[in-house]
């Protein structure tokens, strides 16, 4: 496949692995921020081929994982309304709320649909004027511009039967929260390439300076991830702490200006609760006042729903890199992808699910030797 096979070349990968082995002299703990990177690392077996001295900590960048339980409960309450067509990206359907998931709502007669773009939900609203169409607007800066565009278009077209349950989160405040934590172990970040393709990477420059932490904008294919790791280790070994762009084919320093413009028009920054982490100031997007009529939480009066997490679930510590998924006492026992306690076990991109699916209990060294 053109533009992908080039970044999966085994010979070039080997050269990068060799170089990383050659430059690494001591233990380093790197955090890959994005769930897509975690997925690529585990799926390609990159972690097994890196020097033992390099520890990869899987970051909080999986939108499915950090969406708070109560937001999922709100989604379930809305989706159960008889007059609602509830639209979501596919992998949110299996995320359990405190009682059930969207699949169960669907089996009980709820009209729950997978869409591939929020604009498809706008189209549904136009085609079904007697129904309320609700889109589950979650994700990071990557999915936010399209969601903003959907709300913007709904307003322009006067589609009062469209609304969005918004739970958008932002990466830079989460990185700051991790660095400011007294238990922090992270020494460098692989920044999420696709988030930076929208927002650019200038926002990370003050963070790198304040916390003296290298931040390397990194893509998702194996060679992208390896190049990100190589550049990060080079900085750490040299005592540098800069923002570097190892994903220039998709990312520019200033980001995607039209996308940022629509974001500013529709959303404003405010406090947001992260599953497993808690409230982080200025870490989320909310609909601006002039778009409030598209806020599904207000429209369906579910704003007051509050939910407690399972006490067995340690996904918060996993998301902060304090423990590995398989160090959680519930991992593979009370908590499996079939019966997930926390969202990190649900999504393909979730660190726990990735460990369970691809690494599980078996030492891969014993398999390949």
């Amino acid at each position, binding site marked *: 496949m053109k533009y992908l096979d080039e970044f999966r070349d085994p010979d070039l990968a080997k050269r990068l692995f060799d170089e990383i082995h050659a430059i690494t002299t001591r233990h380093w703990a790197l955090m890959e921020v994005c769930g897509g990177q975690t997925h690529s690392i585990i*799926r390609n077996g990159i972690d097994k*081929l890196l020097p033992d001295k390099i520890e990869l900590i899987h970051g909080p960048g999986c939108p499915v994982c950090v969406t708070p339980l109560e937001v999922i409960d709100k989604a379930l309450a809305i989706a159960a309304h008889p007059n609602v067509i509830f639209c979501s*990206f596919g*992998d949110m359907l299996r995320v359990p709320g405190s009682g059930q998931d969207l699949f169960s709502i669907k089996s009980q007669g709820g009209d729950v649909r997978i869409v591939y773009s929020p604009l498809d939900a706008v189209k549904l609203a136009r085609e079904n004027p007697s129904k309320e169409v609700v889109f589950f607007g979650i994700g990071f800066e990557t999915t936010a511009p399209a969601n903003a565009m959907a709300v913007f278009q709904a307003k322009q077209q006067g589609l009062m039967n469209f609304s969005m349950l918004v739970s958008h989160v932002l990466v830079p405040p989460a990185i700051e929260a991790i660095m400011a934590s007294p238990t922090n172990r992270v020494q460098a970040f692989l920044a999420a390439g696709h988030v930076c393709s929208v927002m650019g990477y200038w926002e990370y420059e003050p963070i790198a300076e304040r916390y003296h932490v290298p931040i390397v904008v990194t893509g998702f294919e194996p060679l992208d991830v390896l190049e990100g790791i190589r550049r990060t280790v080079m900085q750490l070994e040299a005592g540098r702490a800069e923002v570097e762009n190892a994903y220039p084919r998709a990312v520019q320093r200033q980001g995607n200006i039209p996308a940022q413009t629509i974001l500013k028009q529709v959303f404003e920054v405010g406090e947001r609760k992260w599953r497993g982490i808690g409230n982080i100031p200025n870490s989320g997007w909310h609909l601006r006042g002039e778009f409030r009529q598209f806020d599904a939480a207000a429209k369906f009066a579910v704003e007051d729903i509050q939910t407690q997490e399972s006490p067995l679930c340690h996904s918060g510590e996993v998301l902060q890199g304090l423990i590995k998924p398989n160090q959680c006492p519930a991992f593979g026992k009370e908590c499996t992808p*079939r019966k997930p306690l926390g969202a990190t076990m649900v999504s*393909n991109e979730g660190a726990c699910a990735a460990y369970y699916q691809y690494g599980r209990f078996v030492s891969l060294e014993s398999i390949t030797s």
Partner: protein
Amino acid sequence: MTVGVDFSEWVCPLPLRDYPNVIMGHGGGGKLSAELIEHLFMPAFQNNLLETLGDSTIVTVPQQRLALSTDSFVVHPLFFPGGCIGDLAVYGTVNDLAMSGARPLYLTAGFILEEGLSLSALGSVVERMGAAAQAAGVQIVTGDTKVVEKGHGDGLYINTSGLGVIPDGVHIAPQNAQAGDVVIVSGTIGDHGMAIMSVREGLEFDTVIRSDTAPLNHLVAAMLAASNDIHVLRDPTRGGVASSLNEIARSSRKGILIDERKLPVNPAVASACEVLGMDPIYVANEGKLLAIVARQNAEAVLEAMRQHPLGQQAAIIGEVVEQHPGLLVARTGIGGTRIVDMQIGEQLPRIC
């Protein structure tokens, strides 16, 4: 002229069989049912055994071991690039029989029709079933039709059951995989699942992805002619190659190690999977098989497969090992390894 009737618009009352859609009466056992059988099913499935129209059909089979299989088909939409529910209904059961090494002989067909289904759609499906049966060399010898009220079905559901005979000396079963055996796939993977996905979800790609639905019994016969010492055969339908190989690993208590780079994938399927965040190894096939064969017979079997139109892209993709019993492990494109587990439910498109 009789007052009150406008003859310019008047037509003769339609013969019953000319209803354009299925009505409840088509399942009532009366004249409508009889006409459906006579005019729609019989011409498509024509054979002497079916024409007896008894409550059961009497068949004679050779004195060999018999293989029986049944499968139900609920695919939506009914028609998709490369085939329709009728092809799947015939080939699905034929292939299940073929995977035990059986020579499929007879099929039964049960239809559940939703009131309102257009008779022309039903006619096309049934016609395709007749053609598919002919292509597979089987006879549809008995059947049943029921009609459910509108809203109680998805247009058309089909169940087929099949009967086949297993040649002497052929012993094919999932638990027969042995360490050292090689794993062969008959061609590109993931075509059917992505063909259905692209029409069901209205996804438009530059290239139309076509289902691979096809009868595998002739391919299996050619393979068995090359070597009747084939240990395992599976057609990787729902859950794809990953699920079938996991099942074989568990049944045989052996490990299976495959090389991801050797999996044949149609470029359009690979691209569609990338776009949707899916993995072709989990995507359904309807005209492909996995074979596990002793290493010394692998070349002969592979050669026989490549001579057959349905096996031209056959490839060795891995091996059975003593290590990691019950697990499927893949060597990744860049030389790493990963465990390929079964999916929990269906594969869901990822958010980003």
